[in-house]
């Protein structure tokens, strides 16, 4: 699971109002190199919750993202390559996503988060 996906996932339990971002408990992270596409990063930037990305990256051991970011930084190759690395190259392979409101744990196995709910949570 890439941090792009983490940035798009919220706790889906019935009644939860503040289900984003999910906290991350790490067992295993892998890095996989992929091509950098500046246009993709520039257009995704406004869709990404930056704070959640910074925290998520930090919690899986990558602290090279600036705390604050604004669109003017998208002109910098250095910034783009850090953003790219955090968003697309780091994968949470094994671990747990935790609902910030209820503490419900969603396991991630082989890179696949399990967001399936029990009947009483829907």
């Amino acid at each position, binding site marked *: 699971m890439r941090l792009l996906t983490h940035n798009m*996932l919220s706790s889906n339990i019935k009644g939860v109002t503040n289900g984003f971002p999910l906290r991350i408990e790490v067992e295993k992270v892998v890095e*996989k190199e992929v*091509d950098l596409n500046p246009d993709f990063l520039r*257009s995704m930037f406004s869709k990404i*919750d930056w704070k959640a990305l910074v925290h998520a990256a930090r919690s899986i051991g990558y602290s090279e993202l600036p705390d604050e970011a604004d669109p003017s930084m998208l002109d910098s190759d250095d910034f783009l390559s850090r953003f790219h690395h955090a968003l*697309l190259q780091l994968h949470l392979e094994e671990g747990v996503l935790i609902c910030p409101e209820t503490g419900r744990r969603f396991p991630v196995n082989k890179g*696949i*988060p399990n967001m*399936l709910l029990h009947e009483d949570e829907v």
Partner: protein
Amino acid sequence: MRFKTAQIRLVSSHPEVYEPCDDSFALVDALLADRSKLIEHKPKLCMEVGCGSGYVITSLALLLGQESNGVQYFATDTNPYALKVTSETLEAHGVHAELISTDIASGLEKRLAGLVDVMVVNPPYVPTPEYEVGREGIASAWAGGEDGRSVIDRILPIADNLLSDKGWLYLVTLAANRPLQICLQMRQKGYASRIVLQRSTDEESLHIIKFWRESDTQ
């Protein structure tokens, strides 16, 4: 000229996972028929609901390219074996999609709203008794409840929420699902539609319908 889609011999399998069938092939053929439009469309985020073996999402990824083209893929299924098989199928073809074990798009609906440029769905569409819908195991791959519409009718409003302004939805339906009525229902939400491909087999008559927002001229 033949274009690259997923190769059957590289598609992984599991006894509990739906194998690529006439409906899967019809959906991929519809995507191939729309190939140049899809490329021009320049989607950034693509998604499949109910990926099964991964045959369709892998084909889409081969059609549109990966990171260097600036495209990302998400795929969901309620069957955990399906996601395992999909990840093997993707890997065998050297492509990647983000996989999420979830009901339709549960967990993604808030943050992914309005961001999906292409959505493909081959839903469980076979008319069955309602109690067969969504049970564990392979039956949930086809069991569609009354008129085969139970899951389809839950997917449509979610698709409406997830699709971007220029978003396209490709949906597999059966004649028994009353596709025209689906189109009318989507029309009320502001969608135009077109049957991209129609195919009758011995057992079923399949329609692959494409939906897009009327405000977006194609």
